[in-house]
C-alpha cells in the first residue's frame, strides 16, 4: 500500500535520473557490442590497451591518493594538488636534463631514476608543505567553499609561478633507452616502461597502505580523519598529522611526476597538472574519497577505462575521433558517480553523512 503510494509520488528529478541511468547503461552496452562484433581489434590489442591503461591509471592513483588523504583529514578538496604533481615533474626534468648532459644518465640509468624520484618527491613535498602552511592552515575550520576557492587560487598561482620561473615552453624528459624496449608474451606486446611504472606505483601504494594501517603515525592519521576533536582528546597533535598528510601526498605526487616523465616524456610544462589533477580527483571520488584503497582502485580503473573506453564504447556508437574525447571520459564518470553513488566504489556511507 505505502510502497504503491511512494511510487506514485516519485519526483520528476528521480525520473530524469532513472532515464539517465538507463540511457548510460544502454549506450555502454550498445557501443561495446557493436565494437566487439565488428572484430576490429584482436584480443591481444585489448590486452595492450589494458596494460597501457594500468600504467596510466597507476599514475592517476598516486595523485588521487593525495586528494584522498587530504580530503579524509581536512574534508577539503585540495584543488592545487595537480600543481604539486606538476612541480615534481618539472623540477625532476631539470635534474634529468643535467644528468643527461653530464652523461651520468647513460652510465647509471637506475641510479638516475632514483635521484629523479628523490628530487621530485622532495620538490613536491616542499610545495605541498608550503601550500598547507601558507594557504590552508588558517582555513582548517573555514567553510568548504572558502577553502576550495583558496585552493583554486593556489592552483593558478602555482601554475603561473612555475611558468614565470621556468618559462612557458614544454620540455621533454630524456629518454631512457632500456625503458622503451618491449616484452612479448605470446601475441601480446607490452612496453617495459608500462610494467615498470605500474609495478613501482603499486609498490609505493602498498607502502602507503602499510604505513597508514600499521604504524602509529598512520593510526593517528586515521583517528584524525574520523574525528579531529576526539583525536586531540587522545593527545594527538592534529596539526602535525595534517602536515604529515600533506607530506605523504606530496611524495606520492612527486613520484607520479617522475613516472609521467618516464612513461610519457613529452609535454612537461606549467599547466601539465591541471587535467591529471581533475582526473585524479575524479578517480578519488570514484573509489570513495577519503579511502586509500578506493583511491588506488579508482585511479587504476579510470586509467584502464580511459584507455579502453573510447575504442570500445565511443567507436561502437559511431563517434568520430573517439580518442579526442578521452579526457572527457573522466569527467563524465565523475558526474555519473556523484549522481548515482556519491560514496564511490569503496566509500562508506560516512562520506554522505559528513555532508
Amino acid at each position, binding site marked *: 500500500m505505502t510502497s504503491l503510494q511512494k511510487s506514485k509520488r516519485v519526483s520528476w528529478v528521480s525520473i530524469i535520473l532513472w532515464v539517465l541511468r538507463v540511457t548510460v547503461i544502454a549506450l555502454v552496452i550498445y557501443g561495446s557490442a557493436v565494437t566487439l562484433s565488428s572484430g576490429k581489434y584482436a584480443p591481444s590489442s585489448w590486452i595492450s590497451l589494458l596494460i597501457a591503461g594500468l600504467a596510466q591509471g597507476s599514475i592517476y592513483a598516486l595523485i588521487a591518493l593525495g586528494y584522498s588523504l587530504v580530503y579524509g583529514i581536512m574534508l577539503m578538496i585540495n584543488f592545487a594538488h595537480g600543481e604539486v604533481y606538476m612541480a615534481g615533474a618539472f623540477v625532476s626534468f631539470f635534474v634529468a636534463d643535467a644528468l643527461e648532459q653530464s652523461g651520468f644518465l647513460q652510465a647509471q640509468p637506475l641510479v638516475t631514476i632514483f635521484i629523479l624520484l628523490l628530487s621530485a618527491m622532495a620538490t613536491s613535498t616542499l610545495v605541498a608543505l608550503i601550500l598547507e602552511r601558507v594557504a590552508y592552515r588558517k582555513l582548517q575550520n573555514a567553510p568548504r567553499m572558502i577553502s576550495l576557492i583558496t585552493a583554486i587560487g593556489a592552483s593558478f598561482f602555482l601554475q603561473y609561478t612555475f611558468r614565470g620561473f621556468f618559462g612557458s615552453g614544454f620540455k621533454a624528459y630524456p629518454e631512457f633507452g632500456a625503458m622503451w624496449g618491449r616484452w612479448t608474451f605470446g601475441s601480446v606486446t607490452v612496453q617495459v616502461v608500462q610494467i615498470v611504472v605500474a609495478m613501482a606505483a603499486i609498490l609505493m601504494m602498498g607502502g602507503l597502505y602499510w604505513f597508514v594501517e600499521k604504524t602509529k603515525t598512520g593510526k593517528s592519521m586515521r583517528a584524525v580523519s574520523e574525528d579531529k*576533536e576526539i583525536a586531540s*582528546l*587522545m593527545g594527538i597533535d592534529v596539526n602535525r598529522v595534517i602536515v604529515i598528510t600533506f607530506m605523504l601526498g606530496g611524495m606520492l605526487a612527486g613520484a607520479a611526476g617522475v613516472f609521467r616523465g618516464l612513461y610519457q616524456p613529452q609535454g612537461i610544462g606549467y599547466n601539465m597538472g591541471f587535467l591529471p589533477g581533475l582526473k585524479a580527483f575524479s578517480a578519488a571520488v570514484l573509489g570513495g574519497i577519503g579511502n586509500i584503497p578506493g583511491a588506488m582502485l579508482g585511479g587504476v580503473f579510470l586509467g584502464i577505462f580511459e584507455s579502453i573506453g573510447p575504442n570500445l564504447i565511443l567507436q561502437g556508437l559511431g563517434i568520430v575521433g573517439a580518442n579526442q574525447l578521452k579526457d572527457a571520459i573522466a569527467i563524465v564518470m565523475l558526474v555519473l558517480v556523484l549522481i548515482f553513488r556519491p560514496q564511490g566504489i569503496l566509500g*562508506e556511507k*560516512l562520506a554522505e553523512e559528513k555532508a
Partner: protein
Amino acid sequence: MQTDSHPILELRNIDTYYGQIQVLRQVNISMPAGEITCLLGGNASGKSTTLRTILGMVTPSQGSIHFRGERIEGISTTELVKLGVSMVPENRRIFGRMTVRENLEMGAFLRKDRKEIEKDIERVLNLFPRLRERLKQLGGTMSGGEQQMLAMARALMSRPSLLLMDEPSMGLSPLFVQQIFKIIQEINEQGTTIFMVEQNANMALSIADYGYVLQTGKIVLNDTAQNLRDNKMMRKAYLGET
C-alpha cells in the same frame, strides 16, 4: 567521602562567549580529588561549553582554570591529556572504522610503555568484559551501550587522574545506564576523580558526591548530592516533580 582533599581542577569566575553571545557567566566549579562531581542542567544551558572550556577548545574571555594549582586556560587539548585529564565524549564518538583494540590503543596514544599498555588493556577488559569478545570488531558495528563502554575504556587507557564524562547515560537503555553508572563508581573507587555532565539528574546524583546546577550559563545551585536531591526547587525543576 574525602572532604579534606584539594581540588584537582578548579574553574574560577569563567566567562565564555561564542561571538556576541555569552554562554557562561561567572562559573565557579571545583572538583575535589577522588570524588565524583556532577554538573546538571537542561538543553542549551551551557554544560557542553563548560567542558569545552576546560578542554581548551574554547578560551574563556574571563576567569581562570587551575589544574593541581597551575593555571591551564588556553592550553592545548594535547597538553591537557599529558597532564592526566581524559574525557568520555557525549554520544560516545568512538573511532567507528577502527577495531576495538585499535580504539583502546588510541586511548594510550601518548604512552610509550608497550608492556604497561598491554596490562592496562587487560585491566579495562576486566572492567568491561563485553569488550573482550569484540576486540577485533569494528567500533562502528557495536551497539550504543557497547560503544559507551568502549569510549569509557578508551578514556581510561591514558591512566587519567581526572575523567570528564559528558552525558554518559544519553540514549542508553535503563539497564545499560545502571551498568554504566556502576562502573563509573568502580572507576572512582579505584582512585580516579570524576566530573560528570548529566541530564539524568536522579541517576547522576545517586552516585555523585557533589553537584552543580547550571541554568542559562549560570550556576544556580550547588550543594552535596544528598542535599540537592532533597532540595525542593531542584526536585521541581529538574526531577519533574509537581
